[in-house]
């Protein structure tokens, strides 16, 4: 479809599109392109900025450090490498092709770092790098952990310089939101957007969605419709739910802060709330005001159920956003390795370095915190209010995890998407800032993979209870990749208000209708339906009709919290003994010695109570449609190998891995269906054949553990050494050689 589109797409200018390239340049590149006739299939709205060739892309997965020659282009969407070689059209590789970008394409927002290779020295390129010098080699690290090596040595100097500067400019320089590709893409694809065939994802954009959700969980709170035009607060979603006793006046008091937002109701009636906490300053007038307000809010929350509430300030016990970022950037270095030798080097200390990054521990802490909240809701039947400064980072993580553990609906594909929509997108997680897609300097501090952390936690849960989840590991991986593709409205904005203002602004030039960006949930934008089949977990235990909904088989001891509300709601830590258990982080310990000392005597009991809760849960038969608790022991938290190891050929297990079992299961399922069909047909017709089975009897040896992201494919090389070394060793006439001392040959 795209040759024509690229022609029109290359035309310089839609008014809404701010081009940093002069028309002349574009014309020139266009000419060059047509001359070489090598360009990728451009997307609607995509424009080529610059290109150069021949560029040598060295392929890592090869035995030899062989390379592929081709052209490197930079468009407003991606950095793309088009190989000179004829594309291999293996069926397998086509199966999981992303429609937006291919295996040699890097969406601009997906670029993590760029290194330049100057005479064997590797240098990190930062924005503002405008020197005349250009490196002979560009190394691009992607956020989905791919790694590209482009050698500029063979291109014309002028071209090489231009492409290098172009790539650096478009990838690393700060830019405005309007330059993000979603704009031009949204405009172009306006018309063929009707086919939203699978709208099972609840978008929580309307009042009904929220009402429906509250009805589903049998919550008894108040739906607030006042903010539809963001008049109450720009920080809050258009519609949200608060405890019944929160007054209109309360809502407007602190600009969206300090309001407990309802997240989810437990079947016992208690509910989970989240809140952006108010700054607790020293003694002054406002602090008094804050205190009384918070007191009032807590009262309101408590009245929802049994007059009890537990509060949890997440920043006290969980790592900060900066910690998360730091740990993750340390962690991902293990997977961004230039060459095999690096890998073997790190390999020796693999486990300890993995541990040293602390990433797994952060995951553990988040899951543990979620388990604590679950315990309060399930065992003690108290309302829980989680707080955080913004109320949109770790609050989102914890509240979505809690809901995921409790509610089987959220463990279906549609439910999970609704959950993300509810807690993250509408809930106001600052996706744009956290991803820092615009490369703004002042936002670098706030960059942190909070959403990825959540997906990691989900992955851990899913690994432990595969039959409980309708979606597959592949789905999670793809979702984590999609965050960095700047096409989807889902991950492009900081809040619903942000989105609304932006789309309103985009409307201004007098266009027919507001720009509509695709949401990520419309998977057909990225994958065709066959590839989407891989999102479904074949092991998912669907709830059969006769299954009763999860029942409180054991009636919890109905111990009413008789303590007076005002005393129960103290922020004092001692009041929530047993709630805060994890104080492992040594750094925090040092910072809060004073406060911690008071708990020092009780952590054991806290741990014991959680453990007791766990054991009690364990006694009951496991219900995949009931409450799930993750196991958090050292050996059980694992590396998300599909996401992190998929591009590293050294770590792929060919013809093995769990994927082979999955594949077999899928095959078996298919055969069951086939046989059933046969049986049905059998009723009418007499003959039958097994062709279907035979056709499917493909050997899974073709798969590797990195399926479906990388495929072992036909490579044109021969096994090297030591066979050959040995051969030559043998064939050569030994007599011709000098006598030397025995010496080791080769390496290692």
């Amino acid at each position, binding site marked *: 479809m795209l040759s024509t589109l690229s022609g029109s797409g290359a035309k310089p200018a839609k008014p809404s599109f701010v081009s940093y390239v002069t028309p002349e340049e574009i014309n020139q590149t266009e000419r060059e392109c047509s001359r070489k006739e090598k360009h990728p299939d451009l997307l609607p709205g995509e424009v080529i900025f610059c290109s150069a060739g021949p560029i040598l892309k060295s392929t890592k997965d090869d035995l030899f450090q062989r390379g592929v020659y081709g052209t490197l282009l930079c468009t407003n969407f991606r950095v793309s490498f088009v190989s000179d070689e004829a594309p291999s059209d293996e069926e397998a590789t086509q199966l999981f092709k992303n429609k937006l970008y291919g295996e040699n394409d890097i969406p601009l927002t997906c670029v993590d770092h760029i290194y330049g290779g100057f005479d064997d020295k590797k240098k990190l390129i930062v924005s503002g790098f405008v020197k005349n010098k250009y490196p002979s080699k560009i190394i691009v690290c992607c956020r989905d952990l791919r790694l590209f090596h482009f050698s500029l040595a063979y291109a014309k100097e002028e071209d090489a310089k231009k492409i290098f500067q172009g790539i650096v400019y478009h990838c690393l320089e700060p830019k405005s939101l309007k330059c993000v590709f979603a704009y031009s893409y949204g405009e172009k694809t306006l018309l063929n957007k009707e086919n939203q065939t699978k709208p099972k994802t609840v978008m929580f954009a309307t009042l009904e969605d929220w009402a429906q959700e509250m009805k589903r969980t049998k919550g008894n709170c108040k739906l607030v419709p006042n903010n539809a035009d963001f008049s109450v607060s720009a920080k809050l979603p258009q519609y949200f739910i608060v405890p019944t006793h929160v007054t209109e006046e309360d809502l407007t008091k602190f600009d969206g802060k300090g309001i407990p937002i309802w997240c989810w109701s437990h079947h016992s009636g208690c509910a989970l709330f989240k809140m952006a906490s108010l700054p607790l300053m020293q003694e002054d007038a406002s602090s008094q005001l804050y205190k009384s307000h918070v007191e009032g809010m807590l009262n309101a929350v408590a009245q929802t159920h049994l007059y009890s509430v537990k509060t949890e300030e997440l920043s006290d016990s969980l790592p900060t956003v900066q910690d998360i970022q730091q740990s993750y950037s340390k962690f991902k270095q293990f997977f961004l390795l230039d060459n095999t030798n690096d890998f073997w080097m790190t390999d020796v200390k693999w486990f300890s370095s993995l541990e040293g990054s602390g990433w797994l521990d952060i995951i553990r802490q988040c899951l543990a915190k979620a388990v604590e909240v679950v315990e309060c809701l399930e065992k003690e039947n108290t309302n829980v209010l989680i707080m955080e400064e913004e109320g949109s980072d770790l609050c989102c993580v914890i509240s979505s995890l809690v809901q995921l553990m409790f509610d089987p609906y959220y463990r279906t594909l549609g439910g999970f998407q609704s959950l993300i929509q509810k807690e993250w997108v509408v809930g106001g997680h600052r996706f744009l800032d956290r991803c820092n897609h615009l490369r703004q300097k002042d936002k670098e501090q706030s960059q942190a993979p909070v959403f990825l952390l959540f997906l990691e936690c989900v992955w851990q849960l899913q690994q432990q209870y595969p039959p409980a989840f309708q979606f597959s590991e592949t789905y999670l991986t793809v979702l984590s990749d999609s965050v960095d593709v700047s096409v989807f409205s889902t991950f492009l904005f900081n809040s619903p208000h942000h989105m609304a203002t932006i789309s309103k602004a985009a409307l201004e030039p007098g266009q027919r209708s507001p720009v509509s960006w695709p949401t990520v949930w419309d998977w057909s934008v990225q994958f065709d339906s066959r590839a989407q089949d891989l999102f479904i977990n074949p092991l998912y235990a669907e709830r059969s009709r006769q299954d009763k909904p999860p029942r409180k088989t054991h009636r919890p001891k109905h111990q009413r919290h008789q303590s007076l509300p005002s005393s129960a709601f103290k922020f004092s830590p001692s009041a929530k003994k047993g709630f805060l258990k994890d104080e492992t982080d040594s750094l925090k310990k040092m910072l809060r010695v004073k406060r911690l000392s008071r708990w020092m005597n009780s952590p054991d009991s806290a741990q014991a109570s959680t453990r007791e809760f766990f054991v009690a849960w364990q006694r009951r038969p496991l219900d995949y449609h009931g409450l799930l608790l993750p196991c958090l022991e050292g050996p059980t938290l694992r590396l998300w190998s599909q996401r992190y190891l998929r591009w590293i050929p050294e*770590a792929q297990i060919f013809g093995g891995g769990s994927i082979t079992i999955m594949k077999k299961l899928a*095959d078996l399922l298919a055969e069951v269906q086939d046989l059933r069909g046969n049986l049905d047909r059998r009723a009418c017709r007499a003959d039958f054949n097994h062709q279907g089975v035979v056709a499917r009897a493909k050997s899974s040896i073709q798969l590797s553990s990195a399926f479906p992201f990388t495929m072992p494919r036909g490579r044109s090389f021969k096994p090297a050494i030591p066979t050959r070394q040995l051969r030559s060793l043998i064939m050569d006439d030994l007599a011709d050689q000098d006598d030397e001392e025995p010496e080791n040959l080769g390496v290692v």
Partner: protein
Amino acid sequence: MLMGSKTTFKVRQIVPDMKEKMLNYSMLHRKCRDKFGLRCLPGECVLQRAVLVRKKLSAVEGGGWLAGTLFCTHFRVAFVPQDSEKPDDNADPVLLGDHDVALASIEKVVAVGPSRTKLVTANSSLKFTPEELVLYCRDLRVLCFLFDRLTPETQAVEITYAIAKTYQPLKPGSILSFQNAALGSVEMRQFLSNRTPDSQMKLFDCEADWDGELERTGATDWRVSTINDRFEMATSLPRFNVVPQKVLDTELKKTFAHFNEGRIPRWCWRHPCGSDLLRTASFQNNIYHEKDDIRNLEAIVFGSHQQCVVVELGEEMATLVDVQLAHTRLRALCLGDISASAYVPDDRWLSTLENTRWLDHIRCCLKKAAEVACLLRAGQLTVILQEPEDRDMNCVVSSLVQVMSDPYCRTVLGFQGLIQKEWVMVGHHFLSRANYYRDSDKEEAPLFLLFLDCVWQLWAQCPTRFQFTGDYLLALHDSAHLPLFSTFLFNCQRDRSRPSQRLPQSYTPVNGCWREATPPDSTQDPLDPLFPAVWDWALQYSPQRRAQFSQPLTNSGPVHSVLNGNLNTTPHYHKPNDSTLGSVFLLSRGSFTSPSHLLPWRIGGGSGGSYRKSHRRAPSSESLSGLERLQKACLLPESCRGHSEPQELLPQLLGPCVGIWRECYLRGALQAQAYSHPASVPSHHPLDRLAQEVQQLRDRLAAAAVAGSRAKKQEPHRANVNLNQNANGGTFLFSAPRVSVARAPPPTSALPALAPRDAGKRTFLFGQSQDGRPDLRYAPMPSSRLSKKKGSSLAS
């Protein structure tokens, strides 16, 4: 730290009143054999009993608590669940029930009181009534029994004492009495001697098995030599050794002296590409080499090939001490220390695991084996594994190579044969390494467990390419801790045949016979128990557990019958003349050299003019990390290569790809038990269910087909035949049916015989592609019987 072998226990005689009690009970149990629902072995007597006990079930068993009665006999601690069905008196005795543990595998007894825990030893006294009894076992299991409030206090105390007094791990005599308790009775001996061996199982203790192996692998220029029939040449070698055809026995005789312990290079396997795998002890340097000798030596070393690569295992691999230390640390990490209640914190777990270095040793073994496998694949080579003693790492590596390269070794039967061939027969020091008698602490090293873990790693990476399951490996792992099996109780074959006085003179070879279990002469000491081989799984495990030994789904890739031996895959380009000598290389640290000292006789001999000081640098044009590359090349899927060769199963050895054997090491860890939901333990449930469903549907389909054909009155018999074939064809779900291969390897096709009856059907459907092959000419009865049965059931 938990150091199994280091803890010392005071030894104490069995107290007299206990002997009395034993007598009483044994009298009692003659009359009513299962008064309390415990099915005793013949001669076994109950020492103590406690009622209303609950056993904590591990995650694999389903979790929770099981109520029942706890027994202590002088062979085992047995637990009989309350509502278990009445034991069948006529059934064959099973040594250990599903909930039992043998006394000999108990390592520690810990009593948990209301406020404290205490390690109970033979002469310690309890000052409190135990509420809980925790048994730590050598095989890393931890059993936990809870006494109810209604349990009589005396019973709880008494049984704790009884267990603590009888298990006595350190006293050599106690092992003997343990063995006698289990196998010493007349009934038991009779039963054991009447056990019919599995005729498909190759024990490699007769010439026929070796011949079969030579034929299977197509190694036609090798022969079985009986020169060591009376263990005169080398005491630690088996009776039968495979040597080149062209070397006569008389010539062979002279070569023994040139090798450490007389362990000359012996053939163990031929790769389908034609390379031979040999293993040997190190050469003796200090012996004068005569010219004639040298010719023979060279002939043995080179076999049928021109080139020979010596793989020296002594220096690069972990030493025995290393392995033992790593294993001890691993135990400590996984079990924790109950008395100190010190567990590794979660966030330090991974680095602690790394520090055990157990995984490093595993990687090292796997790497070496992968290298050798790749080397063999190059074709037309003789690869010699050399180790000073040839009894430890050689076993690990040579068997791993075969597991990787030979699909047959990934079946249950093939794997058992492999262990017989590479471990039992060649004289791995099972007894010293296992240290059952606690008399060889310095020699103790769990090499066999290391090997099992290596296999598990392979299995975990490519589970679909094995016929056996993790359960099977686990069962084997546990059995290795039980000093009851002839397989693990002796250091070499000579010792193994000695106790029952079966010397070669009176020995008459019977094909495929269970020699270990042949009825002993009447002259034999009646107290000498008759040890069964470990492969008699029915003796140890219930049919339910045995049913899980083989996968419902195997054979993703076709089992390459290239290894059948009937295909002549080894075209001999040039038969080496006796006068031409080949070149020898040493593979060490991932590179080749040809140092002069490799074959000692070549230095001093100067014979035949072919000797040359041949060490030189190889023309290494590429700076390679050679073996890695080679491995990668081998790893590439079949389709990439021009012709279809058997694909090796090469492991990925990077940090993220090697894992810990959870089902084995972590099953005992109390904290891990507590924190994983039983049902979340990965199991084969969905697979089994689906497999069953497929079969049901097939049956229904078949029935419908029959009905349909009947209705049409259209040659019902013919229809059946077709159907049968169709059904069989359909069983090749995951393997390309290769009809071109005429002969199925007999052992594989006989697998259903091993599988229990009830599992037979399933195995038939999903187990082996070989089975269902229409061409059953060479396949022995079991499969044909099965398919007949199927046919008849269809007809009915």
